[in-house]
């Protein structure tokens, strides 16, 4: 199913849900459960909390389907709800924000030579290594990497989901990318 077809179907299901049709919620759940779960898991790193987040997000959709205004794709709206639910959970965890560390870290990064870049790209074939380096990113950086490269979202959509300026999204991805390169380089050396 194309992105446009999926969005059309999702809009119809939301409309039906505003009339209380639970079979539409079931169809909606099956359409989007995996994406919501993956996104939550990327940030929470806990399958139980990610599953709880799916439940909360879908309950929110069920109760407030009429709040979808149609100004974005349904998936963007849905991931925005997921972002908020995950943020609430992270606040409860009281995790230290690691963004400052990553930014400082990136500032010390020197330009890689082309040869080093070839080695870095080769190292990315190691799925375990790339997973470790992704896990070492801050939640904010891991989030934008997931939305940009797993969900293939435009920076404008990501900005809407995470509720920050478009420039901030671009900067976060830039720094996340540099942090990943540094992590991969360390393993090569």
């Amino acid at each position, binding site marked *: 199913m194309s992105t446009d077809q999926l969005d059309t179907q999702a809009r119809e299901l939301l409309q039906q849900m505003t009339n*209380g049709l639970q079979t539409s*919620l079931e169809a909606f759940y099956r359409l989007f459960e995996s994406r919501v779960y993956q996104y939550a898991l990327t940030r929470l790193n806990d399958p139980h909390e990610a599953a709880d987040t799916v439940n909360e997000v879908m309950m929110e959709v069920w109760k407030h389907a009429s709040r979808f205004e149609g100004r974005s794709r349904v998936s963007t709206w849905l991931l925005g709800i997921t972002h908020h639910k995950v943020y609430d959970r992270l606040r409860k965890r009281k995790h230290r924000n690691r963004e400052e560390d990553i930014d400082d870290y990136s500032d010390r990064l020197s330009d890689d030579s*082309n040869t080093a870049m070839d080695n870095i*790209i080769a190292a990315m074939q190691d799925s375990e290594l*790339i997973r470790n380096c992704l896990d070492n990113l801050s939640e904010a950086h891991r989030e934008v990497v997931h939305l*940009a490269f797993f969900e*293939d979202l*435009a*920076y404008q959509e990501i900005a809407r989901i995470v509720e920050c300026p478009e420039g901030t999204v671009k900067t976060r991805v830039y720094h996340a*990318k540099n942090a990943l390169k540094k992590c991969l380089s360390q393993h090569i050396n």
Partner: protein
Amino acid sequence: MNKQQLQESLPWYVNDTLTDAEKQEVETALAEHPELHQEVAFLQTLQSAVKQQQPGSQPPGEMGLQRLKREIIKETPSSTSSSASRWRVFAVAASLLAVIQAGYILQQSTTDTGIVPLSGSHYEGPVLQIQFKDNASEQAIRALLFKHQARMIDGPSASGVYRIAVKSSGKPIAETVKELQTNHNLVDYVAEE
């Protein structure tokens, strides 16, 4: 576009979400900074690696859906107590089943040979989803369905939705939906399946 701006645009160039104008701008800038072609290659590999990452666990699936449905039932408000509301749904369903078995709802013309027991899998005509008001009586529902030559084929779901089949009569089904919707004292919601 300076080099920094170019580098910040490359992820969106790689995931193909730039506008045509932005893409053109990036490609022009890349021609001026060939050293960034390796950057593009890195981002393409990153995109591929992220997509191929197997999650450490699977989403909850049907169990998660059942959990959601249970919580919706618990949270659904009603004008009476929630348990009384559930009993009302069951009571209406039980009454309707009794009526169906008595043959009252399966009203067909004498020339119609398509009469089959509800227990069979065959039914004719378009199918609607319908939800009745909590205080709708079985007698009123029966009369409504008889009037529109409709019969129950399934339901209720956890939220009280029934499926009814309407006998094909040449009348557009949308018209039947509108007519059913005018029964505000009986019908909460009705739509084509």
